[in-house]
């Protein structure tokens, strides 16, 4: 076992869609001494189990399945001979970019990198985080775990299903379980609106006659060995269950699609400061974190709605990491971005270079007839009108270099009506 420290220009942690497109972009920008570390046994990340279509409309102008979309990038990784290690778990990243990892062949090993790109993705919020009362039988899964059992392993986690949460994976699994012969009784959503994409509500619920119960939650879980049923209830404006609306639904499976959490445990070991809203790193327009030489992209930075945007963001991170390694730097600014609460967050949170900067953001509620205003003090830098903005869909605006001129800080505000 070779325990000597290796030197690599760029280490990319995670070989999912973000990691692969960051690697490809860095390679195309001239960084040839790079390495992708992937904990699963194959590149592709969560796309491997997303066998439905709908990926790539923005990026490739066609509808691909998850594995097909991943293959577009994996093919390039192979063509360019970009080195990668699978079944390799990163255990630690130090602030000075020493990466410690482990696998079966090399044991525990370390790599010193000039730059690191964080592309670890996200995980699903579990039942425990919700503190739903009741028993603890088998039959309760996060939607993604069920997706893995069905799509990758070929097993049915259950046949009578209730889904809590209308995140995209939950919606996709409502359709998948139905197609596999299960009966999906209802999708309950705590909020008065869905957290998923409008097209998924149409194609995964409405097309199959699956009821979406907004402002509803699961208040109790029943069954000692295998799940036997759940009690659901409507909630009031303050999201408290209304006792009179309690309703028992017999079922053997409860799938949870109640939020995704960026997996930033490694970022913390590297001392990367996080945004309290996104739970991802604070970054500039290059997706560089506040720790020099460490970049972040994809769902570890903020949860995306479409993989197409993940690829776009990862390319920025890949190119910027290459520029950083090559010692390029542009005219330096320091413009912090802030939000009004209706706009929940922006990525990036800071602009340090004068160039075209696309700012991604999400809103806190469903708003109609909205105007996004980007303000520098009282000066309106940019205005964008839209008939509707919803929390489930990521929004973006592009700022031009001249709009950044002399700005002390940019505030993102939403005007409604």
């Amino acid at each position: 076992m070779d325990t000597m420290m290796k030197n690599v220009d760029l280490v990319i942690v995670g070989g999912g869609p973000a990691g692969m497109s960051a690697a490809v972009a860095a390679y195309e920008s001239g960084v040839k001494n790079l390495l992708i570390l992937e904990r699963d046994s194959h590149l592709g990340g969560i796309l491997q189990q997303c066998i439905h279509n709908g990926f790539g409309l923005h990026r490739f102008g066609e509808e691909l399945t998850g594995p097909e979309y991943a293959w577009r990038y994996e093919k390039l990784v192979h063509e360019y001979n970009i080195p990668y290690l699978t079944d390799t778990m990163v255990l630690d990243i130090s602030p000075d970019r020493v990466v410690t990892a482990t696998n079966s062949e090399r044991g525990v090993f370390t790599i010193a990198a000039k730059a690191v790109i964080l592309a670890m993705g996200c995980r699903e919020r579990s039942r425990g985080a919700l503190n739903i009362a009741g028993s603890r039988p088998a039959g309760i899964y996060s939607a993604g775990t069920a997706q893995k059992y069905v799509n990758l392993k070929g097993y049915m986690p259950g046949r009578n299903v209730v889904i809590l949460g209308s995140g995209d994976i939950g919606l996709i699994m409502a359709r998948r379980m139905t197609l596999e012969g299960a009966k999906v009784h209802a999708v309950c959503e705590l909020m008065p609106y869905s957290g998923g994409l409008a097209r998924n509500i149409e194609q995964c619920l409405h097309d199959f006659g699956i009821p979406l119960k907004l402002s509803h939650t699961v208040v109790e879980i029943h069954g000692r060995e295998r799940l036997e049923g759940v009690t659901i209830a409507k909630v009031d404006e303050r999201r408290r269950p209304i006792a009179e609306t309690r309703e028992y639904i017999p079922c053997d499976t409860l799938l949870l699609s109640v939020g995704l959490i960026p997996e930033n445990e490694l970022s913390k070991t590297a001392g990367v400061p996080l945004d309290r809203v996104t739970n991802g790193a604070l970054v500039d327009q290059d997706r560089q974190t506040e720790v020099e030489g460490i970049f972040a992209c994809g769902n570890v930075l903020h949860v995306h709605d479409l993989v197409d945007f993940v690829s776009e963001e990862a390319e920025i991170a890949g190119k910027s990491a290459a520029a950083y390694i090559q010692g390029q730097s542009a005219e330096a600014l320091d413009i912090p971005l802030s939000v009004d609460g209706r706009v929940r967050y922006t990525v990036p949170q800071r602009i340090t270079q004068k160039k075209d900067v696309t700012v991604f953001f999400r809103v806190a509620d469903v708003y109609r007839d909205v105007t996004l205003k980007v303000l520098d003090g009282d000066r309106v830098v940019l205005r964008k009108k839209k008939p509707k903005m919803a929390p489930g869909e990521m929004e973006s605006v592009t700022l031009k270099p001249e709009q950044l001129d002399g700005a002390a800080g940019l505030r993102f505000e939403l005007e409604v009506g």
Partner: protein
Amino acid sequence: MYDIAVIGAGVVGGMIARALSAYRLRVCILEKGHDVAVGASCANSAIVHAGFDAHEGSLKAKLNVRGSELMAGVCEELGVKYKNNGSLVIGFGEEDRETVESLRRRGEANGVKGLKVIDQAELRRLEPNISENAVCALWAPTGAIVCPYELTIAAVGNAMDNGAELKLDFRVSGIEKIPGGYRVYGAEGTGAAAGQNAAGADADGTVAACAENGAVLETRYIINAAGVHADEIARMVGDDSFSIHPRRGEYVLLDKECGGLVSHTIFRTPTKMGKGILVTPTVDGNLLTGPTSVDMQDKEDKATTAEGLARVMSEAQENVRGIPFGKSITSFCGLRAVGSTGDFIINRFGEGFFNVAGIESPGLSSAPAIAEYVLSLLREAGVALEPKADYNPRRPAMHAFREATIEEKNRIIRENPAYGRVICRCETVTEGEILAAIRTNPRPRDLDGVKRRTRAQMGRCQGGFCSPYIVELLAEELHIPYEAVTKFGGGSVVNVGRTKEA
């Protein structure tokens, strides 16, 4: 014929079986569950109490103080994590100050060492996040934390390594007095045996299920350590001198990120309603809050309640500031076995039947001393305790790989590459560790069993990523179909069949 049958593989039964396995006795442990440590021993506060709570002169007081003294050594031998973090009983007003003083006096009478009443400044220095309203505290430096199911698994495993037999899925359904001993009838366990047999998982007769309907065994002595069911077992031999009722305790467990919020175990000054909600780090670095205390009828109802969880969270916040309950990773409920006498019920009935019942708090703390005490009762009853020459009190730590140096890890990975493959990312548990656990006494046969032994699935994603892999490892190791793997035996199957079948 067995010399001794221990009924119940909780921490008490496990520690007793381990103590017995040091002698030339044929010992079996009968457990109705699909695994060991599935009753109160897998859901309690995980505290080694110092011993100031129980009344002077009670068995609880005596065995708690003795157990607390023995615990560190027992854990060292069994390779179980133990941390002497000390405990604090915090008081909020003048009335509490008196209670704190009386606890100190009682503790000293019980023989607890090092007790000290401290003022607000010192309390704040020891625990900066303590409530601002806490004005004084009893500091018990001998208080400690331990993982109760890890201790139980290790004790049973060590007993088995020394020759004791474990019969899972063996629910004692009747006991008959025969000359020189007892005949014990077993029925299927908690619904677990049926599924197990159908799955054909009876891979290892000594470990795996063997209690078909009508299983019978004979034994000279019986030790009744059946937890909440101990009164039912006692009645089978005609002892109706006590009853047991379950008392529900609900807990909320938080992410390891929060484990450093307090370093001591923080109790509220006890009231008539009990010891209140505690806040404590666990030996594995999480933060644990609970329990509630509600008397129940149903001995199997381990459901949590919305009111209970809400109470845990609000009362814990009164004791310690800034507990981030948004970082909860799970909530659970345990049932304490509350005896009708108010004290532990440890006695002999008839010639050879011993009750070890009503072992509520401080049962975990007392367990090593209970085992010692039971040995003395056996001796009094004329049981010949001849030491075994080859008795080995030690068991390799289940967490050895996790704590090894990088050089040591690399040596292990070179010998067995499975130790380089991380299966559970949240807790960094490797395939090697999971396989070793599946192959070590007492062998787990379900997802929860693997979880309790390795911590895989116990982290912040609660098995979301790794459980499909662990199901695969269990299926391979147990030679059962993938869809026959359960969460905890019986009907708790993880998958109900293959796709494309409906």
